[in-house]
Every structure is written in structure tokens, then in C-alpha cells.
């Protein structure tokens, strides 16, 4: 899979900006998603209160995450689930591959799980000799195209229907068509027999309820229900931050998530799975294994500003609202998590060295903060990360420039001199090409306001 790297965000963005088709697709998708979200939120008079409540619940959980995780695990295990703890991606993949291999699994069906993309689980399963089939339509499309997802909830948003039609014709032998219903039927048909033949079903988890040990997974297509009902073994993979305290808390989150993500009051299906079936003759898998993934999340608990990153419910609303994402799309970020939330969690999960550009790729407009259902203050997070990165990793020239800047700004005589110097420099030196390549630049005033005031 040709993942772009976060380290080359600037180049990735440049390439994305040159892709006319991509920009058209992004414009349509983000404005449509944004409008639907806006309308859905407007339909609930207590929307703002719900956001505050959701954030308060998340804050409570995160402050006592160890306790809530232990409660969840105890309750899930008492109902027959087996719970595994994975410190990092490699450990998670090893556990999951182990489970599948022990049961001589050949075919694995998967429903959309960002967490498994984060760990690159599919590569590990394939290396262990298994056939992995993504069953969410968007994920199925990008799997066929051998591309990473470009959006948290609509992974194939960067592709036009024509591109998808051509892909299906080439890979699935579908008769050429632009008709979306035809393409959907083709996918449905192709995937049906995979579901029937699968030995293992792997899903993500939207919410894990500590009080009851229940995992909750939401969807529109029905592939999650098939993935989690048909195969004998169901493996549910979740980040440790997915826990919420009480079953009744679901009311708040199930009101916020579908509206924020797709503008729906509820997605078509919610599955509430608590342990394994009671009797062998009942429907459903024989085994449920839940994998809890850390992979850098526990580190984020150390500071209230970074801790809020873990409140994210993966709705994607911030992506649709972001002027940067709207222009460059998800691939440019080089991460499973793009857009505003991606810009703050990618450096924290993958390490700053791998994603140092991302916190700077923002105009700090705050549109993301406005739409976040759990009120994550992403601009605050971006500034926090910049505060961590710049003093250590900023270029020597930039660090020096700001040291000089501080001197100038704290000395009236230096400040006065700098405005004189600025006027001269602007006349004799080429002004920053970065600005003037597309915009004219006003000349520095011949008299500053300070000087005008003196003349009053």
C-alpha cells in the first residue's frame, strides 16, 4: 500500500492541490456533510447541553481510566468475553494473528476499524497467510484500489463514481456502469459469499460500557452485523479510550455521533454485544475476544490539554469543517487519522519526529472546535504541540528570528529602529516569495502610527 508519509505533508498537499478531480470530490463531500451535520444539530434544541454532557462524561472516564477499564473488563469477562491487552500495534497484531492461526482460520472478514488501520493489521494477517476482506463498502473500494482511507467515516470520498465503476469493472468483472445502485449490488453480491465462508470476523468498537461489559458498534450497511454474527470467532479491537461509564450514557453519545458524522438521527443499525451467547444453539459467534490497544494513548493522559484528544468519538465532523482538509483531503496527512484531529493525535501516537509538520498545517480558524461533539479544543491542542515542537525542532534560523523578535518587541528604541530597517529592507530585498507568489504585499508605511501620534 503506497502510504504517503506525514513527514512530507507539504509535498503531499502540493500534489493534492494540483489534482482537480480530488478537489472537486472534496468540495462536494465536505460541503454536503457539513450541511447535513448543521441541520441535524439544529434539529436538537439541547445540542449545546449534549456536547457539554458528553465532554463531562469523557473527562470523568479519562481521569479514572484505569478503574473504568478494569470494570469493563470484569463485566465483559463475566459474560464470556476474553479480553487481551496490547501495549502497542505489534502486540495487537500478534495477539489477533495468534487467535486466527490457532483456529486454522483462512478467511477473515473485517468491518471498518480505524484502530486496525492504525496497527496495519491487514498486512500482518496476510503475512500470516490469511485472506482479509474489508466489508464496509468504502473500505472494500480502497482495498481493491490498494489505497489508504482518506476520511475517517467515508474512506473512499476522494474517488468519483466513475473511478469506482472502472475499478469494479477491472477487479470484479462488473459490466461498465456509472450507476451507484449497480455498483452497490455488485459489492453486495461479491461480499455475501465471503461472509458465509469467513472463519473470523474482526470489528472495531464505538463505545465500550464499563457498567455492563457491553460493546456498541454503529453502522448503516449491515456489514458489521454480518461480520459479528456469522463467523465462529469475533474479535473486537478498541483503543483504551473508548470506554464510557454507564449504559444510560449511550443516550448522549448516540444522539451526537450519527448527527455529527452523517447528519442522521440514528444510523441504520446499532449492535449491543455483551459477552457470548448463552446457549450453544443460539445465534452468533462461539467466541468473543476483545483487544484493548494502548499504542501511546496512556501517555496522552499526562496533561489536561493532550488528554482531551482521547475524548474523540471519531465522527469526522472536524475534517468536513476544516479549510485545510477541504483543500487537500486525507491522504496528504500521511496518517490513518487525517484532518484536525489527525493533526493532533498523529504526532502523539506516532511520535513528533514522524509528524512534526502536522500541527503547523492549520490557520487556527477554530471551525473544528465549533463542530466537535465533545468540545475538543483542537486549536488549543495545536498550539500546545507547537509549543512542544518549535523550541526544540524549529529551524535554527526561526528560533533565532524569534529571539531577535522578542528583543525588538521589548525595547522601544529597537522597535523604532526595526520599522526604519523594515522600510529599507522591503525596498532593497526580494520580499518573501512565499507571500508574493500569489498576493501583492502592501508597502510598509513611511510613517508608523507611533510617529503619526507624536505629530499630533
Amino acid at each position, binding site marked *: 500500500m503506497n502510504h504517503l508519509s506525514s513527514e512530507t505533508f507539504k509535498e503531499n498537499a502540493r500534489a493534492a492541490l494540483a489534482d482537480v478531480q480530488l478537489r472537486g470530490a472534496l468540495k462536494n463531500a465536505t460541503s*454536503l456533510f457539513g450541511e447535513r451535520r448543521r441541520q441535524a444539530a439544529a434539529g436538537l434544541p439541547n445540542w449545546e447541553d449534549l456536547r457539554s454532557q458528553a465532554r463531562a462524561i469523557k473527562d470523568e472516564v479519562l481521569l479514572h481510566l484505569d478503574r473504568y477499564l478494569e470494570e469493563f473488563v470484569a463485566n465483559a469477562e463475566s459474560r464470556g468475553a476474553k479480553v487481551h491487552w496490547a501495549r502497542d500495534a505489534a502486540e495487537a497484531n500478534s495477539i489477533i494473528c495468534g487467535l486466527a492461526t490457532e483456529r486454522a482460520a483462512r478467511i477473515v472478514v473485517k468491518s471498518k476499524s480505524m484502530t486496525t488501520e492504525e496497527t496495519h493489521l491487514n498486512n500482518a494477517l496476510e503475512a500470516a497467510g490469511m485472506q482479509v476482506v474489508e466489508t464496509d463498502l468504502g473500505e472494500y473500494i480502497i482495498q481493491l484500489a490498494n489505497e489508504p482511507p482518506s476520511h475517517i467515516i467515508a474512506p473512499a470520498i476522494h*474517488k468519483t463514481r466513475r473511478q469506482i465503476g472502472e475499478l469494479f469493472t477491472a477487479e470484479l468483472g462488473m459490466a461498465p456502469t456509472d450507476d*451507484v445502485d449497480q455498483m452497490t449490488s455488485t459489492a453486495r453480491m461479491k461480499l455475501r459469499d465471503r461472509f458465509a465462508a469467513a472463519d473470523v470476523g474482526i470489528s472495531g468498537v464505538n463505545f465500550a460500557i464499563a457498567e455492563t461489559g457491553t460493546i456498541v458498534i454503529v453502522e448503516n*450497511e449491515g456489514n458489521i452485523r454480518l461480520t459479528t454474527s456469522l463467523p465462529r470467532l469475533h474479535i473486537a479491537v478498541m483503543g483504551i479510550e473508548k470506554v464510557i461509564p454507564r449504559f*444510560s450514557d449511550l443516550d448522549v453519545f448516540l444522539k451526537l455521533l450519527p448527527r455529527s458524522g452523517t447528519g442522521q438521527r440514528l444510523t441504520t*443499525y446499532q449492535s449491543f454485544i*455483551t459477552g457470548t451467547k448463552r446457549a450453544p444453539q443460539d445465534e452468533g459467534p462461539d467466541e468473543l475476544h476483545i483487544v484493548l490497544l494502548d499504542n501511546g494513548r*496512556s501517555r496522552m493522559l499526562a496533561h489536561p490539554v493532550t488528554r482531551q484528544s482521547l475524548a474523540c468519538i471519531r465522527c469526522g465532523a472536524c475534517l468536513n469543517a476544516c479549510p485545510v482538509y477541504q483543500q487537500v483531503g486525507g491522504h496528504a496527512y500521511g496518517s490513518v487519522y487525517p484532518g484536525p484531529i489527525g493533526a493532533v493525535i498523529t504526532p502523539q501516537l506516532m511520535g513528533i519526529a514522524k509528524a512534526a509538520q502536522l500541527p503547523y498545517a492549520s490557520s487556527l480558524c477554530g471551525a473544528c472546535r465549533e463542530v466537535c461533539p465533545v468540545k475538543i479544543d483542537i486549536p488549543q491542542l495545536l498550539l500546545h504541540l507547537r509549543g512542544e515542537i518549535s523550541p526544540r525542532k524549529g529551524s535554527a534560523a526561526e528560533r533565532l528570528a524569534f529571539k531577535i523578535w522578542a528583543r525588538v518587541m521589548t525595547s522601544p528604541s529597537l522597535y523604532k529602529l526595526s520599522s526604519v530597517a523594515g522600510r529599507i529592507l522591503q525596498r532593497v530585498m526580494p520580499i518573501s516569495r512565499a507571500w508574493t507568489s500569489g498576493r501583492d504585499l502592501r508597502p510598509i508605511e513611511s510613517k508608523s502610527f507611533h510617529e503619526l501620534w507624536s505629530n499630533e
Partner: protein
Amino acid sequence: MNNSARESILGSIRTHLAASPPVDNYPVNPANPVILSKTDPVNQFKESVEAVSGHCIITTNATNVLDQILADLNAKRIAYSDNPPNAHDIFHFDVGVSTAQAAIAETGTLVLDSSCERHRLVSLVPPVHIAIVNASAIVETLDDALALLQQKEISSAITFITGPSRTADIELTLAIGVHGPQELYVIVDGSK
């Protein structure tokens, strides 16, 4: 199992939380009760189901209505949740028929409980799903339904169904009937 990983992760959580400067409690406003529609729950439920492209019939003779629908669909192989076909055969059935233990008026949602019937595949695999729910089992809000489910120990599998299956993954164009049913019929039995 892997206890060292468990202890390591829990330990990491505790250490990092302990390192964190104290923070003010985030202010919480209790959510104001939503003003409900003046329509009675049954009619509101019907409107909500239709708003998500489901069909809803309110009747006092559910059996007749069911027979009529099956006849109209020219259904040949019908799967019933009280005695469902096995997981391989069910893929060849035309219609799945189940009941629902409750329903939510504000969203048009059916609540199906695995401890009451074998609904999981019958309501998912065949291209048409017909569900029968008692009018008296319709609650107004999501909150009500969640409370209802907590009146006893949570069953191992509960499913909420709102309309037929759908996707908008291709150019955000709505396509009905992806992996789940393409048609949903809800029969509201007003006789009970």
C-alpha cells in the same frame, strides 16, 4: 493471559494521570428535556419509519397484514425468527419475519433482543425484513428504550434497526440495501 501487558498499560495510565496537573471540573449542564412532538407515539413512530424509507402499517389484524405483504412480494422462501434456517441456507431466503420487543417513536427504531427471539440473521440476511411490534411496546425516546433494556440483565445481543440498510460511500449518493435488507416493513399491532 497476558497479565504483564495488562499491568503495564494500567500502570502507564496511573503514572501519566498522576503526572497531570490538577484541572477544574468541566462544568456540566444537565441536558434540558427535549420538547416532544404532540403526535401520539404510534403515529410518530410511523412517520419516523417512513422518513427513513421503511414501510409502516398500523393494524389490529397483524396476521392478515403479514399475509398480504408476503403475497404482494410473491415471497417463496420465508424465514421466521422462532425457527430460523441455518446460517448457510438463510442466504437463499426471500423474506425474514421477526417480532420486535420494543420500538422508539422519535427515530422509527426497532429494538430486537436475542434473549427473546433469534433475530440476528432473520432480520439481516434476506433482502426483505418484516417486523411485528405491539403498539404498547412503542416508547417515545432513545433514553426510554435504553432504560427499558436495563430493567433486566443485558442480553448478549441487542440490535436497533432504523430503516433498510444503506450507504453513501460512493460520492455521497444514497444507495439503499447494501449488506442488510433492502426493504423493511413494520407492522404495528394495535390490538395489544
